[in-house]
């Protein structure tokens, strides 16, 4: 439910932005149905609007979504007994927020295959529904930022961060990652500061762990 409600407004924002970037209703809808990559879809729409070619858009969004390799690797040990056919929907819906929710539940032992798929499918449904609303009523909605939707994702990340800080050492990891990502954001574009900072912080903590 929470991920569903969080995704509807952001999906609507994507629908509006995709429409202004030249997507038809069907294209915006299909993009959300088959791609399901929040930030990646926004970047694709922005690049297409700016006149970028197909290869540029695919490379840029591919690089942005490299972070999902890290997410997949982190959640994989919890999916040891999960049948392949259930791994498919889990992988397809592994967005930043779904990863945050599922890994937090998996670590606390409150997740099983179906609860994790449930979180993914609910998020996807919200995203698709939101995109349809946004693309269908772009003119009516106007500028999506007047509704404060740009804080929905940061809010979700903030809550998931609080959920993740379960020990002193994890708080240290968070501090290291936060500071490093700000530093790296001065020199690296897109999602790279976050990926680089997370890998550095995890390394520092793993090496100093007893």
């Amino acid at each position: 439910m929470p991920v569903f409600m969080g995704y509807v407004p952001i999906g609507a924002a994507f629908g509006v932005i995709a429409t202004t970037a030249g997507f038809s209703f069907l294209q915006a809808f299909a993009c959300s149905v088959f791609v399901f990559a929040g930030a990646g879809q926004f970047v694709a729409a922005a690049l297409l609007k700016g006149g970028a070619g197909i290869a540029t858009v695919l490379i840029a969004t591919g690089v942005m979504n490299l972070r999902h390799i890290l997410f997949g690797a982190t959640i994989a040990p919890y999916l040891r007994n999960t049948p392949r056919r259930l791994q498919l929907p889990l992988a397809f819906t592994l967005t930043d927020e779904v990863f945050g929710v599922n890994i937090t539940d998996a670590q606390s032992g409150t997740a099983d295959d179906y609860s994790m798929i449930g979180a993914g499918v609910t998020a996807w449904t919200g995203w698709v529904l939101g995109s349809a609303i946004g693309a269908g009523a772009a003119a009516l909605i106007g500028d999506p930022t007047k509704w404060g939707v740009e804080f929905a994702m940061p809010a979700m990340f903030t809550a998931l961060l609080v959920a993740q800080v379960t020990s002193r050492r994890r708080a240290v990891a968070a501090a290291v990652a936060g500071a490093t990502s700000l530093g790296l954001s001065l020199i690296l574009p897109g999602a790279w500061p976050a990926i680089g900072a997370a890998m550095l912080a995890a390394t520092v903590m793993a090496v100093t762990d007893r």
Partner: protein
Amino acid sequence: MSWQIWAVVAGMAVTNFALRLAPIAVLSRMRVPRPIERWLSYVPVSVMAAFVATEVLRPGGAWPAPWSNPYLFAALPTAFIYHRTRSLFGATVAGVLAFLAFRYLLG
């Protein structure tokens, strides 16, 4: 223009799914060595902290002064409400409302 958008949608769908599935498909059927496992255990908290830091302190790539940054002010009640209620939904809704209020107050 229209076929280009379809090509981008198809290309993104394939790359995205491949990137998400590959590590799960491979690593879930392997024994991950202890040091790697320990490293991975710090990834979620680090990723979330990195996202929060950049999205709250540098929204949209800008670097607004902390005292006039509604993202920063709104993040505090969001964290507090999640800490108290453990409700992701409640915290997100409260966060967006706080954000709208602070954006109005801070001009």
